[in-house]
């Protein structure tokens, strides 16, 4: 329990910064919806001039920016990236930050099994992510209701779009943790997590742009594409199950790897 509180305290500032950034981005988007909705014809004209591959790459090909949720989905792809970077940061640093700052010797010399240490740390990271998620949900609902100005939208679909975040958080948290435990030393958390998230995103964009379906299975951004959820009104279950499988495997691998890990020194 003390580790949990300690870890959560250490993450508090980061949670505030991420929550604030996400809030700011949502407010920014909400403020331009009115203009976008009014100038839809003009926007469609502009978009029509772009090559269809490019539109597909960003998931803008089957999107209706003039509707409340269509526009939200457009904004939400950026939110997904931010949330994923935050989760990847926590995942990569969960264990490695103690090893890099050499506090691991302090913690692991205490009378606790490693399993418990890892669980406490994971729960603290999840709590931090879920606080961010709660802020995201509240701000999203307020923002959507604010800019909708009486236009109707399906609340269930909005909930589905928002809940995609929970999966992405787990995916990048557990994935980052597992990868960090496969490495002897994690060189730099920020660069590796930005690399992973943008790598996955570019892969998704590339796959869509090229019309390459196999890529769809590799990157979680294709499993939880907001514009797709809004268009179909539901999750793509086969694809989601891939993400879930990755999460489960990464979790099991993390516990096994950490149990037998040699804690590096200077």
């Amino acid at each position, binding site marked *: 329990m003390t580790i949990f509180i300690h870890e959560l305290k250490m993450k508090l500032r980061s949670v505030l910064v991420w929550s604030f950034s996400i809030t700011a981005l949502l407010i920014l988007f909400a403020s331009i919806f009115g203009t976008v909705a009014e100038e839809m014809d003009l926007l469609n004209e502009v978009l029509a001039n772009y090559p269809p591959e490019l539109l597909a790459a960003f998931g803008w090909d089957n999107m209706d920016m003039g509707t409340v949720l269509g526009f939200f989905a457009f904004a939400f792809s950026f939110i997904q990236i931010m949330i994923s970077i935050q989760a990847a940061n926590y995942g990569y640093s969960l264990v490695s930050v103690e090893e890099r700052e*050499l506090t691991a*010797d*302090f913690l692991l010399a*205490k*009378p606790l099994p490693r399993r418990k240490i890892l669980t406490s740390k994971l729960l603290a990271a999840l709590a931090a992510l879920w606080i961010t998620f709660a802020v995201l949900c509240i701000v999203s609902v307020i923002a959507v209701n604010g800019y909708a100005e009486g236009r109707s939208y399906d609340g269930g679909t909005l909930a589905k779009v928002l809940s995609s975040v929970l999966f992405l958080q787990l995916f990048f948290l557990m994935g980052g943790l597992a990868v960090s435990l496969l490495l002897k030393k994690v060189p730099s958390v920020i660069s590796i997590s930005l690399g992973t998230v943008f790598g996955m995103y570019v892969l998704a964009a590339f796959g869509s742009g090229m019309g390459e379906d196999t890529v769809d299975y590799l990157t979680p951004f294709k499993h939880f594409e907001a514009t797709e959820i809004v268009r179909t009104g539901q999750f793509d279950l086969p694809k989601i199950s891939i993400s879930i499988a990755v999460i489960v495997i990464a979790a099991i691998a993390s516990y096994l790897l950490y149990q037998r890990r*040699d804690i590096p020194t200077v």
Partner: protein
Amino acid sequence: MPIIEINNLSKYYGKARGIVDVSMTVEEGEIFGFIGPNGAGKSTTIRLLLSLIYPTSGSAKVFGKDAIQHGPEIREDIGYLPSEVFYYDKMKVIDLLNYSASFYKKDCSQRIKELAEIMELDLKRRIDDLSYGNKKKVGIVQGLLHSPKLIILDEPTAGLDPLMQQRFFDLIADENEKGATVFFSSHILGEVQRLCNRVAIIREGEIVTVEDIKTLRHNNYKKIAITGEALDSSIFNIDGATNLTQVDGSVNFFFKGDINQVTRLLSAQTITDVLIEEPTLEEIFMHYYA
């Protein structure tokens, strides 16, 4: 029952040697010194005892229990001071110590105050504002606050000024008197000599010898220095003499064996001065590494 029992313990980091086939036991109530140069495998051995790393082969028991299987249980009664002290920079000293204490099943607040007073540690400072020596003090208090039965110290005195070193040694001696066993690694022989009952010497990952500190010093080695005109060092080149050197009129060497051999040789010489003394542990140590 031995407090520490190490059996044929080996550790390789990939192909790099950590320690090779180390065996030794530390008895209850001992202050056991563990000496060797940097990179000899001292920290590796200690980190194996704490299961911070896992052995390639062999096993270690602490309090009669396997170090890996019963790790958490064993660590309840171990106080560990790592060679390099690093703590969460943004915390205050007192918060770090309370965090440390929270892992043990006893109330340590009183002991924290006592130890901080002895070591003159300001509990209200932030850790990243502390000097290296002060961080070391945090490490010492952190390692002793739960009154452990086994105290493991890895190069503990680096960064402490002589006064604090003395306080620290007194503290360790006190804990030892109260019944704690101490396992003390160092590359500074003077401090080991001062404190320890027995000592193991490790070199390139292997134990060279485990000896009583007294036998080690009274190993019949004599350090002999002779000054005189027209001395020829070669006449002292006898069995048992080592490290024979001559600088101008003075001859120095170590001798192990019947001292009469030397005195007989000396009586035939015209000398101005002679000094026969116990070598320091440092010099004995050099001998093991020669």
